[in-house]
């Protein structure tokens, strides 16, 4: 729903209760499994990637033939 449409609805009908299923909800076994699997797989991926990146030699060492300290001259060349 676009925001405009949503806002028009909520402002004009703000006294109406949202009609939704009123059964109580609790985190069930399926919810636990999906949540743990999703969060842990993303965490594992990000930890592996970031650890690998940070444990690599720096870019300067990899490009040893290039200048050791790269001056981008960003601001000097600005004008």
């Amino acid at each position: 729903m676009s925001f405009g449409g949503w806002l028009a609805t909520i402002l004009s009908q703000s006294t109406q209760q949202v009609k939704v299923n009123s059964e109580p909800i609790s985190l069930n076994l399926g919810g636990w499994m999906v949540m743990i699997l999703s969060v842990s797989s993303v965490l594992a991926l990000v930890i592996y990637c970031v650890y690998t990146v940070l444990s690599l030699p720096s870019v300067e060492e990899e490009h040893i033939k290039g200048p050791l300290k790269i001056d981008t001259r960003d601001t000097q060349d600005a004008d």
Partner: protein
Amino acid sequence: MSIGSKERWGSRIGVILAVAGSAVGLGNFLRFPGNAAQNGGGAFMLPYFISLLVLGIPLCWAEWTMGRYAGTRGFNSAPGIFTVIWRRPFAKYLGGMALLIPLVIYMYYVLIEAWCFGYALHYLTGDMQIDKPAIAAAEQAGTDEAAAKLGRVSRFYLLAPEFQEEDLIKQGKSREEARAAAQKLRDSESDRRAFAFSKFFSRLVGSEEQGVSMQGANGILLISLVGVFLGNFILIYRGVTKGIEAFCRIAMPLMAVLAVIVLVRVLTLGTPDPSKPDQSVMSGLGFMWNPDPNELLDPKTWLAASGQIFFSLSVGFGIIINYASYLRENDDLALSGLTSCSVNEFFEVCLGGLITIPAAFVFLGLAAKGYADSTFALGFVALPNVFAMMPAGQFFGFLWFFMLFVAAITSSVSMLQPVIAFLEEGFGLKRHASAAVLGLISALGVAFVMYFSKNLVALDTFDFWVGSVLIFVLAMIQAIMYGWVFGIDRGNAELHRGAHIRIPWFVQLMIKYVVPVYLAAIFLGFCFLSLPSKNTFKFKSNADHAASLAAGQLPDGLYDEGAANNTELPSIARIEAGSREGEWEVRDKDNALTHLIRRQTDGLHVYKHEAGYVEKVANSPVAIGSILFIGAILAFLMLMVRIAGQRWEREGRLDKLDS
């Protein structure tokens, strides 16, 4: 190999954080949880991860590869990059689309960024709490001066019934109906709170009238907008390394720390109101994560999951391709691309998925579901309401909105760089000149979106046509360019030059064959769901009502039957003959078509009419104006691309590519 641009990323982690910063934004914290909760909860994650593996990560690698390839051949702007990859005169115009997209998105995104900053400032000034003792005192005093001393949200809470009555009368309801609704609001604490925060937001963004957000009374927003606009341009002026990279190296860890603090607060809320034991953290997590496997059979779930991945990773925005062009020839692409995607997923699944919906559920209960289908409603109305009820909520509200602001600024700054690169590369402008030209164009667009603020139609139109439709088109062009023009053999070799991880060969086959088909399917599904209008059958009624309808009146009996079938017919309705015999259109006070009634053999069938995007645009002069504005920007950019192309030919830069 010649290197045209002097700008290069300073470190490996710097470029990763910059690309991830570009991708992490409001969508991670607000759009993703809303989408998941609406589409099967935990079941949503299956199509979500499939889309990530099949569509998201491969497309990212394709953009990284083409960007670095062209960057090492002296081109950083999209028209130049596209020309390097596809040696045809029209390629540079396709690249022009990769300038239009970030530029137009910036025009409204910077405004949203200013909202976030404005909210954070309002939290600092104590404007965002519902101060019950002060409200009671003001109510007792009964004077305007007493009300004026209250903070903004408290004032809206105090005056909510009066505002409600005024609004409903403006909408054409009778005075009695409006009074009854106001009284109902007065009696309902939760509705009154929701109204106060809705009012605060609509006043801040100016969605009630055109141009009101630009007035002096909206001082905090104006100050925020000027501040974030200048902040973005200062970062861009400082350049890729000293501006974007330096900022992202601080901003990304800061964002993670702020989000983790809010996450810990949310997960330790327990059951804040003992009288409502069903509103606990565990039930909030259940609301978000419990899988509904039936939803997997609904194509809309797959479409929503693919769209979420697509929008979240910033593919098809023209940003990654530009950022990657500042890499050196032997810099790693494979691991860097994967890391930036995984950082984005961390913010989305591990933080966004555990904070927003559970927090909203704990305090709002099942009513939180009513907010989940609108990113803005969830972020700017439901969550402030939640923070107002939370212990130390003012502090956590400030942290949350400041974190959203930081997330927004890392994204908005990335939208400026592709155009800055083009102005410098295509016209030889120095940084101050290119920043000034871009500042002028983008300020014009921001003013347009800000002025036409009623119901946020201009913002919605920009977001739909550019932030949704055009990025699909550009992603499709890039997938075809990589798979069929650049070639997957060359792509694979280029991707693995300097790579620290090996990417299996089948990924290349996926980019060539699966990604374009997958993208086309999502795009067609998206168009099918969004563009045409729909009539949904609601209930069957007695054919006796046909006489009243033919006389141009909506009979009371239909209202009663509608209410019994959960269908609200407009209180002020106009009946018009439909396009075919035995059909009537029900229009509201604004002449908008809301319901269709058709005579069938077994009685009258009542349908709810949902206007599709085409119909909405056709009925809205502001939407048409917004599309024309986008068209004018596109024409201007294409003219500039043409001039830049002629300049490159004159300088012989394109000949060097062939030699």
